[in-house]
């Protein structure tokens, strides 16, 4: 198969994200994880394709559905799982939780909880790249539900006006909580929002992780050349409810099954299984993923909790201001 080595790498990461989250869901039901837990299962091809299209010096910003891109950018499973468990060894020291994964080392600037508010923030990182000429590109992910809110448009408006090196990736999983696309926006082809800002655009279905990578790369390179932002709408689907408390009664079983049949992870695996070499390699990767995820659970369980002195120490730099 083409690019067998990359295919295996991408396969491993997609499998890792899925298994990491399946185990996180289990830990949640055991009470080891609290608050909100929004799973990315079904959407893995986007984070992994994106991570393979970006350079290490590029930046990413996303929503509360943030485990996938964090792992794909290089956060360890241990740091991710420990964060979910609220442990001090977690990526945000157990202070952020599922919605607020941060990993400065891998230029992963969060995990954000307020719909749309992170788009201007991401545009700010892109602004800094342009200002300093560091050559970095920022990629910001947002949901279909965020396409209607003001901050999203202010972020795009400024990014387009100032030709900032940014790629807006709309992960259109067709629902915002229980609201289907048709009920939440008048024009359901959300890439058309780009037209209003004179931005380049693209739109496709996330069924093939290579396609995700290659099409995002086009947008990234455009940004890097100083030709301004692109809005890329990627159609996808979340297999689980919005969060752990959502039974997702607003969609039919058939609809979910139909999307699962076109699962990008299974598709990649089927391609790998077509040759005996890559099949054996994929099986070995499955085993290594299982070991990594099991270790992350063990690590998270065994890790210490953050202590109260961290609270003031992380509110301001230096002396606490009253």
């Amino acid at each position, binding site marked *: 198969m083409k690019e067998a080595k990359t295919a295996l790498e991408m396969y491993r990461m997609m499998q890792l994200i899925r298994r990491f989250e399946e185990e996180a869901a289990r830990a949640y039901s055991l009470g080891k994880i*609290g*608050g*909100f837990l929004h799973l990315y299962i079904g959407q893995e091809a986007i984070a992994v394709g994106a991570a393979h299209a970006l350079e290490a010096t590029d930046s990413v910003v996303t929503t509360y559905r943030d485990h996938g891109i964090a792992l794909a950018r290089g956060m360890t499973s241990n740091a991710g799982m420990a964060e979910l468990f*609220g*442990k001090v060894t977690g990526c*945000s020291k*157990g*202070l*952020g*939780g599922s*919605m*607020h994964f941060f990993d400065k080392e891998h230029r992963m600037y969060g995990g*954000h*909880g*307020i*719909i*749309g*508010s992170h788009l201007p923030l991401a545009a700010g990182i892109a602004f800094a790249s342009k200002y300093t000429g560091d050559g970095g590109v920022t990629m910001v992910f947002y949901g279909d*539900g*965020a396409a*209607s*809110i*003001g*901050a999203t448009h202010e972020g795009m408006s400024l990014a387009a006006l100032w030709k900032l090196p940014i790629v807006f990736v709309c992960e259109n999983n067709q629902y*915002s*909580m*229980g*609201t289907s696309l048709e*009920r*939440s*926006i008048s024009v359901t082809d959300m890439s058309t929002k780009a037209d209003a800002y004179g931005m380049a655009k693209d739109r496709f279905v996330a069924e093939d992780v290579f396609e995700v990578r290659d099409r995002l790369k086009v947008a990234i390179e455009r940004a890097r050349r100083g030709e301004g932002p692109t809005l890329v709408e990627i159609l996808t689907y979340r297999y689980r409810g919005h969060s752990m408390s959502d039974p997702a009664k*607003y969609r039919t079983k058939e609809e979910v099954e139909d999307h699962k049949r076109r699962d990008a992870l299974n598709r990649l695996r089927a391609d790998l299984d077509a040759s005996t070499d890559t099949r054996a390699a994929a099986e070995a990767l499955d085993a290594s993923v299982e070991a990594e995820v099991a270790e992350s659970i063990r690590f998270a369980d065994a890790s210490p*909790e*953050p202590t*109260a002195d*961290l*609270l*003031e120490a*992380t*509110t301001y730099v230096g002396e*606490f201001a*009253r």
Partner: protein
Amino acid sequence: MKSMRYREAVREAIAEEMERDSRVFLMGEEVAQYQGAYKVSEGLLERFGEKRIIDTPITEAGFAGIGIGAAIVGLRPIIEFMTWNFSAVAFDQLLNNAAKLRQMSGGQLSVPIVFRGPNGSARQVGSQHSHSMEHFYVHVPGLKVVAPATPADAKGMLKAAIRDDDPVLFLESETLYSVKGDVPEGDYVVPFGKGRIAREGKDCTLISYSRMVHVCLEAAEALAAKGIDCEVIDLRSLRPLDEEILVQSISKTHRAVVAYEGWPYGGVGAEVVDRIQRLAFDELDAPILRVTTLDVPMPYNAKLEQHVIPQADRVIAAVEAVTYRRD
């Protein structure tokens, strides 16, 4: 009397007012087909139809503004914020439109609107989802802000809010939704600006509202066992604020602790302390203490979160301090 949960009391108030007045409608995220993110509006779509129970996209500034616009021409909207945290992106609508239109128009316009939803901490939902927004809003003349602690007050005050000709911010609490209590039957309306004695006592006054009233009652029981008899005042209404009930109670106990969720800098507690020291200075035998959320963003870790949120033990310690049982 009928026993019901807080969420049912809120729902009943909405339903009764919608029956009574066709100008009343409910608008917000997931209020209709999903039956409410916290199931407050369960069954209302079926009962009132999609013209009056209206799902919105994620557009808080948009639908808050639409509500205000509809209100100045005579409709009586109930706008649900999925949680009050998200009102932050609509802050301008509340501050510059809802609160200002009456005076700015020389009194020509009224803004009969209710904004409602759960406020304050939930459980481990992190720093962006745990805000006590009342402290920002009570600052604003033109807004009324209420935060009932019981199902009865939830029902009676929401009915009053819907009938009010000024904008009312009605603060519920995720952790109160399942609390049960007796609610009077019939057209039960609780006027604003009147606090409630939740527990009578003579040694110290505990002043609170919303969820923290229940924490204060718990603290009062523990203190009773130690021989300190606390009076617990449930303010219910934060703006307008019932000064009379404060002065009366302090004239009896001569000591006070204000306990609520929200940061210690400014806010409702500071306002209460200011009013007491101005109106009942001579009655005080000790400085008034406040028990608040700690002065930091809310952490995710469960133990740290509980450490940051005010708890009964901190209320007890404060009462012991103002009654000079500890230093």
